[in-house]
Structures are given as structure tokens and as C-alpha cells.
């Protein structure tokens, strides 16, 4: 019991410095004490695992209760009038959609694109583990600040990396650091060695920021994407219609 108390204090970070060294020295010299330490860690792992399993079971029960209220797979509707009612609802939704799209909020448009396209990046091309891939994995874990540091580190060593520039811009945008995002997308757009979405991404950033004059600037950029036949031209055309 006395040893467990001592071990507990160690792992709770309540002892430090010389006492910590004494603890570790005792592990080396006292086999029975080392065994107690190993037990303490293993037991905590097993207990934690059990707690997680119980929590998951609780979640499962919650989910099943929810499904009883809103079944995931609804029974097929057999009566014609129900189909007609559903068709009316669809028609109403479509009319509302068309109506709302006329006055679409620029920020919502950008948010929707970010949500749909940049939840994760590069997940399908992960065949080789390199610094870019590792930075992408950090991004995909939603650790944007850390991911941006990694992308910037790559750019420091290889300033010409288009992918690192693009991802640094996207990550800056996720961090709502619009100035930085615009800076990276401008670098990308300035690289005319091959077609890239730099200008389109700049437009997204401006729509997301939505400050005075941003909408006009974004429209100019989108028009340039269309006129110059740049990457994301089709998307830009659709957005122009929505923003008009």
C-alpha cells in the first residue's frame, strides 16, 4: 500500500527532481518495487480500456434509442398520396433552394466549399511517407497550427513546392488567418508554369473573410479564372451565377 501511494504520486507528477531520480533508481535496484510499478501502469491501462468499452456501450444504447425515434431505414411508403406529399415537399425545397441561391451569403458559399473539400486533404495519394505526407496527416487530425508549422518548414527547405504552398494556404484559411492564406494563394497563382487553383482559392479566402470590398475582389478573381481558362473554371462560373 505504501509503495502504491509512492507510485501514484510519481505518475500524478507530484514528485520531481532528485526524488524522481530516486524513484527510478529504486526501479533498477528493487525488483519487487519495479514489479509494482509495472502492475500500476498495466492495471491503469486495463481499467481505462474497460471504462472506454463501457462508454462505448453507453453510446450504443443512446444510438439505438435515437434510432427508435428516427429510424435510419424507414419503411417504404406504399400509399400514392404519400408519394405525392413527398413530391410536393421536394418541389417546395427546390423552389426555396433556387430562391435562396439568388441571395446566397458569400461566406456560406466559401464555408460550404471548405467543409466539402477541405475536411481532409491528400488522403488518396498517401503511398509514400515523406514530410509533406506527414504534415497532411497532422492536418487531417485537425491540428492546423501544427500542420501549418510543418508546411512552412517544408517551404523553408523547398520554397518552390507548389503543393506545400497550396496546403499552407488552405491550413491558414482553416485557422482563419486570411492575410497569410491570401499570401500563399497569391504565390501559387503567380506560378504560371502550370495551371493551378491559386486564383480560385484567393476568391474563396476573400468570400470567407467577407470584409468591405472582398466580394467585388472575389468576383474579379472568379471572372479571371473563367476568362483565362484556369483551374476550377467550371466551379467559378457556377459561383458567379450564385453571386450575381
Amino acid at each position, binding site marked *: 500500500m505504501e509503495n502504491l501511494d509512492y507510485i501514484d504520486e510519481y505518475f500524478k507528477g507530484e514528485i520531481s527532481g532528485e526524488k524522481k531520480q530516486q524513484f527510478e533508481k529504486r526501479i533498477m535496484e528493487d525488483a519487487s518495487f519495479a514489479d509494482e*510499478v509495472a502492475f500500476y501502469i498495466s492495471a*491503469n*491501462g486495463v481499467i481505462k480500456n474497460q471504462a472506454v468499452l463501457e462508454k462505448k456501450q453507453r453510446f450504443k444504447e443512446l*444510438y439505438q434509442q435515437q434510432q427508435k425515434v428516427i429510424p435510419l431505414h424507414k419503411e417504404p411508403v406504399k400509399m400514392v398520396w404519400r408519394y405525392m406529399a413527398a413530391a410536393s415537399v421536394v418541389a417546395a425545397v427546390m423552389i426555396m433552394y433556387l430562391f435562396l441561391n439568388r441571395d446566397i451569403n458569400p461566406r456560406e458559399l466559401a464555408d460550404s466549399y471548405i467543409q466539402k473539400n477541405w475536411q481532409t486533404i491528400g488522403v488518396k495519394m498517401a503511398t509514400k511517407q515523406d514530410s509533406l505526407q506527414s504534415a497532411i496527416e497532422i492536418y487531417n487530425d*485537425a491540428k492546423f497550427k501544427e500542420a501549418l508549422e510543418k508546411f512552412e518548414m517544408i517551404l523553408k527547405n523547398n520554397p518552390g513546392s507548389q503543393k506545400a504552398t497550396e496546403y499552407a494556404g488552405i491550413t491558414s484559411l*482553416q485557422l482563419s488567418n486570411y492575410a497569410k492564406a491570401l499570401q500563399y494563394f497569391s504565390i501559387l497563382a503567380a506560378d504560371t508554369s502550370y495551371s493551378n487553383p491559386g486564383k480560385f482559392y484567393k476568391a474563396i479566402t476573400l468570400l470567407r473573410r467577407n470584409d468591405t470590398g472582398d466580394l467585388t475582389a472575389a468576383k474579379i478573381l472568379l471572372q479571371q479564372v473563367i476568362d483565362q481558362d484556369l483551374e476550377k473554371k467550371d466551379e467559378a462560373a457556377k459561383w458567379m451565377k450564385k453571386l450575381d
Partner: protein
Amino acid sequence: MTFDMPSYNLKDNELIRSLQNDTVAKRKAEEQLFSQYSYFIKEGMNKYSIPEEDAFDAYSDTILQAIDNIIKGIFESRSSIKTYLYKIFSNKCVDLIRKKTTNKSSIHQTADITEMLFMIADPAKTVVQQLMDLSDAAVLKSKLMELGENCKQLLGMFADGYTDKEIATTMEYKSPDVVKTSRLRCLDKLRQLYKS
């Protein structure tokens, strides 16, 4: 350089506060977080063409990871909880498809064990690691089940990250010291059962 913080709704704030501070409401907040975005399960099924059971597993793991990150302060509120969860969830679904995650329920255990082990400096760490390799998790688990409900709850809450002070409040103990003594007695009892 400007750095605008995105706004996130009050419910996010309330959830974070309950998960981090209010021990009585913590369990409720966990369930609320789970229920609030459980429609991700259906989205995961459609988007990644995975069975409901797999989507549920990915979502449960997402919630558990998010709760851990919120409690540890790793979640910095730079996005809404919804966006944060969806990113983790998508990643877990992709992992699932790649079959990288084979035993998801043990992820947390491994992380905790690693965290504790890394607190010990070498060469003592190696000694402990070797002894742990000899331990039998299945036997330990079966002995854990032999403990009384009170002991299991005490040990479970501590392993789940509650402090002795928080356990004292939740389980209505007189003081954190009483919790600590009771908890270590339970651990000692578990050890005796395991060794026998």
C-alpha cells in the same frame, strides 16, 4: 498579421465547460456531444460505403478522442466542435477503409500506457517495459471484474482522468484524501487477486 478567431455557438462553450470543469454534468455532456452529431454515422455510411457498425465505431472513437482532447485542452476552439468532430470522423473512416485501425478499442489504453511509460527515464523504463510484457491483460481484466462496484467505479473514474477531488465531489466522499486511500486500497486488492 491579422488572426481572426471564428465564432462558435454558445452550446460549444457550454459543452467544453461541462467536459472540462463540471464533474457532475460531465457524463451528461458526453452523451449530449454523442447525440448531437450522431447523424455523422449515416453520412459516414453513405460517403465511405461502410456498414453501420463500422461507422458507429468510427464515430464513438471520434467522440472519445474529442472528449480527451477537450479535457486536455488540445482542442483550441479554432473551429466549431462540429467541424472538429467531422474532421476526426472522416479521418477515422479513411483509416478504417485502409484497415490501419484493427483494434480501435485498445487505442486509448495504448496511449495511456505509453504516456505513463514515457514519464520514466531510461534505463528504468526498459526494466518496467519488460515486466509489463510479462503481465496478462486478460487475467487482469477478469480480476478487475471480481472487485466490488464501488471499487470499479473509483478506479474507472481515476483512469478516465478524474482527479481525487473531482471523484470526491461526484461520489460524495468526505475528502480527496479519503478517495485516494480508498482507490489505492482497491488497486492493492486488485493486485492481490491478480497475484493469487
